[in-house]
């Protein structure tokens, strides 16, 4: 068992953070890598990118939105209880270096949990980092202080204008691009947001990194379920990624494949909700 040592709820419980004791994984984990977690004997294998790693305490932190049966199960695990399985670190780490120019880190929703360690690493590598974070409403904005602390410049956007700029992060990004030389954009969030961001940066010729979250099983390259099309070629996100060149990703294909089990998942979640009502 992998014990949950701390648990936090955000956005009225819609988003949950679990700090889990996993010293072996914590020792090895690098920004951009993920773990696969299983709640219990009957659970499915769920990939989640690590939001924080505490090498001294030997813990890793994952943050997830409670959207389906598995995340509902995850969120029901109390401090002192644990996950049946946690395996990792998986995937290739982010390639961090000092860039010749500014780095924009843009993201939204729970993906900020993924973006945070990468932003931090870029910042600590001595880059000028402009961070643009987005959320549906102020309530849904997570890791605000943490993100601000690792950014040279920090922007907040909300869809409803309840905090910061009223509108999309990409609007703010366009303004930033107009003002200074951007060496790289790191965009992590919902697939349509990454798609749109990549199409904008492509016009400006700015290299762009995105982090993809296809359906996975083993996370070691064994099943091919996580395959994505990059520059016309099949790649396995769990080993070749999860980060890819945003200008080469077939986002429409990814969106489609993510919906493969929509029906089944809804059915499973309904059953679970009925049982636990």
């Amino acid at each position, binding site marked *: 068992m992998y014990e949950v040592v701390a648990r936090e709820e955000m956005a009225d419980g819609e988003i949950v953070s679990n700090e889990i004791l996993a010293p*072996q*994984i914590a020792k*090895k984990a690098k920004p951009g890598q993920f773990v696969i977690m*299983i*709640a219990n004997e*009957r*659970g*499915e*294998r769920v990939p989640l990118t690590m939001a924080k790693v505490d090498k001294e305490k030997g813990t890793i932190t994952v943050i997830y939105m409670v959207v389906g*049966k*598995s995340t509902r*199960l995850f969120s029901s695990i109390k401090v002192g209880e644990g996950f*049946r*399985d*946690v*395996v*990792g*670190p*998986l995937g290739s780490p982010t390639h961090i270096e000092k860039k010749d120019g500014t780095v924009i880190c843009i993201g939204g929703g729970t993906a900020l949990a993924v973006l945070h360690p990468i932003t931090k690493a870029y910042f600590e590598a001595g880059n000028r980092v402009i961070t643009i974070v987005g959320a549906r409403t102020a309530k849904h904005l997570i890791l605000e202080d943490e993100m601000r602390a690792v950014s040279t410049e920090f922007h907040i956007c909300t869809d409803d204008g309840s905090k910061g700029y009223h509108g999309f992060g990409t609007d703010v990004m366009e303004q930033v691009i107009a003002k200074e030389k951007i060496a790289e954009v790191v965009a992590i969030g919902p697939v349509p947001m990454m798609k749109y961001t990549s199409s904008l940066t492509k016009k400006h010729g700015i290299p762009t990194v995105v982090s993809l979250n296809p359906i996975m*099983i*083993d*996370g*070691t*390259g*064994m*099943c*091919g*379920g996580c*395959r*994505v*099309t990059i520059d016309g070629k*099949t790649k396995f996100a769990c*080993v070749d990624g999860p980060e890819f060149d945003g200008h080469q990703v*077939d986002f429409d*294909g990814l969106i*489609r*494949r993510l*919906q*493969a*089990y929509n029906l*089944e*998942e809804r*059915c*499973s979640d309904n*059953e679970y909700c009925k049982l636990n009502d």
Partner: protein
Amino acid sequence: MEFEKEVKYLTKKERRKIPLQHMPEMAPEIRKDCFDEVTLGYSLHEAQMEAARCIQCKDPACVAGCPVGINIPKFLEEIVEGDLDSSIDTVWDKTALPAVCGRVCPQEIQCEIVCVVGKKKGVEPVAIGNLEMFIADWARASGIKNNPAIPPSTGKKIAVVGSGPAGITVAGDLAKKGHKVTIYEALHRAGGVLLYGIPEFRLAKDIVDYELDALRDLGVEIKCNQVIGRTIDIDELLEEYGYDAVFVGVGAGLPNFLNIPGEDLNGVFSANEYLTRANLMKAFDFPNVDTPIIAGRKVAILGAGNVAMDAARTAVRLGAKSVNIVYRRTRAQSPSRHIEIHHAEEEGVNFHFLRSPIEFIGDASGRLVGVSCQVMELGEPDEGGRQRPIPVGDEHQYIDCDLAIIAIGTSANPLLTNVTEGLELNRWGNIQADPKTGKTTKDKVWAGGDITLGQATVILAMGMGRDAATSIDEYLKTK
């Protein structure tokens, strides 16, 4: 055929008259709807009758045909004698996993093909595989494990990477020599392909669990959720963890794709993914378990090996209305065991030979609706003498399907080998190992099974495991 006396008292002449004892099987109509094992196993009497068909050759070809050299005439005669304890020991002397091998080994191209009894026209060879299954199942039902007295601890530690048949064999052999063995497995459950690939209806999972328990009884520790190359590196195992030797048996876990248009449509799977969902994750029990699977009403399987048959028969059991195997060569060229093809046909699977898939077709929402195939014919033989399929003009066949499973083989997974220095690979990415000892080019590291052979068989993986264990043990003695 019944005799008045016990089988062991039959004369040679009477023995010759015994017909082949057929393996009792669950009827196709019943087994189509469940995942229970198809083969039911011999009774003691059936086993003794079948074993008595063996004419006890002086220079038995079957032993030479067995990749691990089981003393087949001896274990068969011990069954005839009713000395089952000795019989299972004879088998265990050469194979750690007889219950598995009896079920999944291609005996028809190994021991049985050379059986002298079968050389006579119209006479079947002795069903050696069925008898191996019998004796192993008897041992399991009697609670007997292959756990001899272990010599005192040597103080040496070995790490085994991967818990498939290669890893299981190495671990057992070395533990029996008094070494401390730890298995590191990437998945959350141990067993390798035996667990996640080969379906329950061909190899019940409690057999695999029994064998793993026997390993634990020997003092072998099995650690799951350990991806070597990610969670821990091989060099760390040797240096920080202090292992004296490492055996790499990580299998050939990288599915090949066809690289044809439409392969990313929803409904197109690798056999590895489909079988892993069904076997390891038990998705057939969804929503009682959380992993879903697309059941498929009309299913196309691309490829015709064992894996393809397993996928097809899994689809049948998940309720498909029609299951179609599509293969670019002929039936005779299919790499699958004949028994698997036979079982698949009994369960209503259709075969389309000389058809090569060229495109997956999807609907507007990206769901698979069919696969278009090029019609082929056999052309000139290649260097290996096998006739190569060539296209027949632009003749096509369209096969309706909402689920397609690609079962055209696997390659070496580079996850571990990419990050391990000093481990030389061949041009297909398989680890280079001495064929006799399994020793790799890296100090203190051995390898065996599919990662060195390419996708092979359970028995070859075990055989290599055994050789590697012997070599590791010899090496440890010199230290």
